[in-house]
């Protein structure tokens, strides 16, 4: 069967189940008596087994099957989920994850060696259970071994009848019943033979009495038979009827029926008259089912959801973006040519595109919990590795972010959490010496703040020592001693975001390779976000990440520099003011202005961007846009303010990816291109 079409869905659902396995196993580790957790773990493993077997991924199926055996023993209280077992299970999940990842990348699943894990699971199962269930492999290979030609002539064998049986048969005959010898042959492919034989037996019980079966009912129940079994049936029905009843059960290859003739005098050997044997695998002759299009019923409504590939959403978003551009263009045409009707229509259209945009945006939104939920496992493993005790609290996992942001934010967060646990949280004895509780707290908090989402990684560890940072920075010649002396503590701490900085004396596996924080910062800035840190010695640190809700369409202020148009994201704008050239004061060789007692450095955009002067303005009003990044503010001097507008961000493409000050471009209503300024970089 072609399974490729199900691949995407298989991968998606496998990931969900692996996630749930990880989470619930953590719960089980905390409370080994948590029956909900073990049941859910069992279900997830079971579902994975079914899916992977269907897809033909036998290694996954085998591993999950063996996991299931162990889980079942835990579930039925036959063994206790101790630390060793939990560890093995975690390793199994990792192996499964690895295999699913391999499949995702188009590699074979079996590059992961699961033999050791399977052995471990089996030995756990063997010690725990009263009877260890057969391993998956043994079972699957056992079945084809029992091959028999089901279509060959296979007349019922003679059955030894006891005197009691013969008496029963005789008295039944007197009351008009027939005695039949029924031989049932199961299909070779039949897997659950006992269940199948049970169905045969109950079907026969409905139309008569089964007085004997070979093998015995007990053996049938324990699957101690090959593909055939024989029964003696007393019934008022015709042979054909019996046969059709049995043939209507699935996976029955053939049924052979003979009437039993018992001589009046009790005689042990029974002679049988042969009855038609019907080859039953007549599936192909069954009436061909008409192909019909599925009708969609109106009553398929409640709680339906659809999984959609992210690339479809991306192109939808793009199309909506194009629509917004065209709308703006129409708006402009209406205004230029003063066509009232067009302007009115565009206003209508504006509402519709606005709604469309917000829906598309919402569809792309994913709760940040999708990223957060992997951290309990990360923290657990890391705490073990570092020999520290850490409690992770997660808040605001429902907070939603654009899918693109979600995909990118995971790694930086892992890094921050690792840093907090490695550098921040102290060892338990050290903590107790400081009068802190031995268990360290790490927090992962998300919340909305205006048009942004804030994600914070907090810890109650040692904090970052500004003096150590200063001396390290000087030592690594990131800054000069003079700079260091002039820096405030907060500024000094921010040095950790500079390239080539690591404060850990020992380079551990966990963190401290010196590439960490600046990579984190770059990633977050690439997402249009900012990162900042606050720290207090011996009380802990807070890393605060501020991310835009979406990356695709933003509100921006359009400004003129000479003839060129630039867009400044509204989110980073504080205010706009008019000044005259006399207001500009030069302090420490930097041009600044004073607004409400605050000294703000200014950037002349034309100089920063190297826009050539066409005209020189004197004694005129100068427009300044005050922007902020974190706590820092800056004034951007521009020639003219055009106005606020919704813009669709287009990337500059690979060719221009090196241009720092520009974060993207947008197409304006008149078809002109405006470059979007990267405020954070402009300020440096």
């Amino acid at each position, binding site marked *: 069967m072609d399974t490729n079409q199900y691949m995407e869905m298989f991968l998606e659902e496998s990931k969900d189940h692996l996630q749930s396995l990880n989470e619930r196993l953590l719960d089980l580790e905390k409370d080994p008596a948590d029956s909900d957790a073990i049941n859910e773990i069992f279900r997830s493993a079971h579902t994975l087994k079914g*899916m992977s077997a269907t897809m033909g991924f036998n290694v996954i199926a085998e591993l999950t099957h063996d996991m299931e055996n162990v889980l079942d023993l835990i579930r039925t209280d036959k063994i206790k989920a101790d630390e060793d077992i939990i560890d093995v299970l975690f390793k199994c999940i990792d192996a499964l994850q690895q295999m699913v990842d391999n499949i995702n990348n188009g590699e074979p699943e079996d590059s992961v060696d699961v033999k050791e894990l399977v052995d471990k699971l089996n030995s756990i199962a063997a010690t725990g259970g009263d009877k260890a269930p057969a391993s998956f492999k043994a079972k699957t290979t056992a079945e084809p071994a029992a091959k028999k030609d089901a279509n060959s002539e296979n007349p019922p064998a003679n059955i030894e009848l006891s005197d009691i049986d013969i008496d029963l048969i005789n008295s039944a005959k007197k009351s008009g019943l027939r005695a039949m010898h029924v031989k049932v042959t199961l299909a070779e492919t039949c897997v659950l033979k006992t*269940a199948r034989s049970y*169905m045969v037996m109950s079907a026969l019980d409905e139309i008569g009495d089964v007085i004997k079966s070979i093998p015995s009912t007990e053996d049938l129940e324990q699957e101690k038979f090959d593909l055939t079994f024989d029964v003696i049936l007393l019934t008022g029905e015709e042979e054909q009827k019996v046969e059709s009843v049995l043939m209507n059960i699935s996976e029955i290859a053939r049924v052979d029926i003979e009437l039993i003739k018992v001589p009046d005098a009790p005689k042990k050997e029974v002679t049988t008259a042969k009855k038609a044997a019907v080859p039953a695998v007549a599936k192909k002759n069954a009436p061909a089912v008409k192909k019909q299009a599925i009708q969609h*019923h109106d009553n398929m409504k409640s709680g339906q959801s659809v999984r959609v590939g992210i690339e479809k959403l991306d192109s939808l978003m793009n199309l909506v973006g194009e629509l917004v551009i065209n709308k703006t263009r129409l708006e402009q045409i209406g205004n230029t040519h003063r066509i009232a009707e067009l302007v009115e229509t565009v206003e209508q259209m504006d509402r519709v595109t606005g709604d469309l945009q917000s829906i598309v945006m919402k569809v792309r939104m994913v709760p940040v919990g999708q990223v957060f939920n992997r951290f309990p496992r990360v923290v657990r493993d890391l705490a073990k590795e570092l020999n520290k005790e850490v409690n992770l609290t997660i808040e605001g996992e429902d907070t939603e972010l654009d899918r693109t942001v979600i995909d990118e934010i995971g790694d930086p967060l892992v890094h921050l959490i690792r840093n907090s646990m490695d550098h921040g949280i102290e060892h338990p004895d050290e903590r107790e010496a400081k009068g802190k509780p031995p268990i360290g707290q790490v927090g992962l908090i998300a919340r909305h703040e205006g048009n942004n989402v804030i994600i914070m990684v907090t810890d109650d560890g040692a904090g970052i020592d500004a003096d150590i940072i200063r001396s390290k920075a000087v030592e690594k010649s990131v800054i000069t001693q003079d700079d260091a002396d002039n820096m405030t503590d907060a500024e000094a701490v921010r040095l950790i975001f500079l390239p080539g900085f690591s404060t850990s004396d020992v380079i551990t596996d966990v963190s401290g390779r010196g590439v960490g924080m600046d990579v984190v910062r770059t990633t977050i800035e690439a997402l249009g976000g900012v990162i900042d840190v606050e720290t207090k010695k011996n009380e802990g640190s807070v890393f605060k990440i501020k991310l835009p809700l979406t990356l695709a369409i933003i509100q921006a202020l359009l400004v003129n520099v000479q003839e060129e148009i630039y867009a400044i994201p509204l989110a980073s704008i504080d205010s706009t003011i008019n000044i005259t050239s006399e207001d500009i004061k030069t302090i420490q060789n930097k041009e600044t202005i004073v607004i409400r007692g605050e000294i703000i450095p200014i950037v002349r955009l034309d100089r920063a961007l190297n826009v050539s002067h066409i005209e020189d303005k004197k004694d005129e009003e100068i427009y300044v846009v005050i922007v902020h990044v974190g706590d820092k503010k800056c004034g951007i001097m521009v020639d003219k303010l055009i106005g606020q507008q919704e813009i669709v961000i287009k990337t500059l493409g690979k060719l221009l990816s090196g241009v720092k000050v520009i974060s993207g471009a947008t197409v304006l209503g008149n078809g002109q291109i405006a470059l979007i300024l990267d405020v954070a970089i402009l300020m440096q």
Partner: protein
Amino acid sequence: MATKVLVVDDAAFMRMMVKDILSKNGYEIVGEAENGAVALAKYQELKPDLVTMDITMPEMDGITAVKEIKKADPNAKVIMCSAMGQQAMVIEAIQAGARDFIVKPFQPERVLEAVRKAVG
């Protein structure tokens, strides 16, 4: 009128699989449910001719669901979808009134055979 089928499985992947097999062969999938409780509600709402029922599910397992559905409609036709190693549960489901069972990994012919025989 095509035979109306309600597909019950907690894995959307499995539902998709069963749905594909059946709809390609002229059956009409009138609904899906991801657990026994939803299945029971949908059964009463949609009145399908046949239900394919997974055994291991959250909220309400397949066996309980069969019992409940049978209670509501003694003529209900249910086919169990089981995995290897669930023999006892399959038997329990049969006792509860399930018509047949199919075993994962599904073979399309087997699924169709079971459905055909159950619908009669």
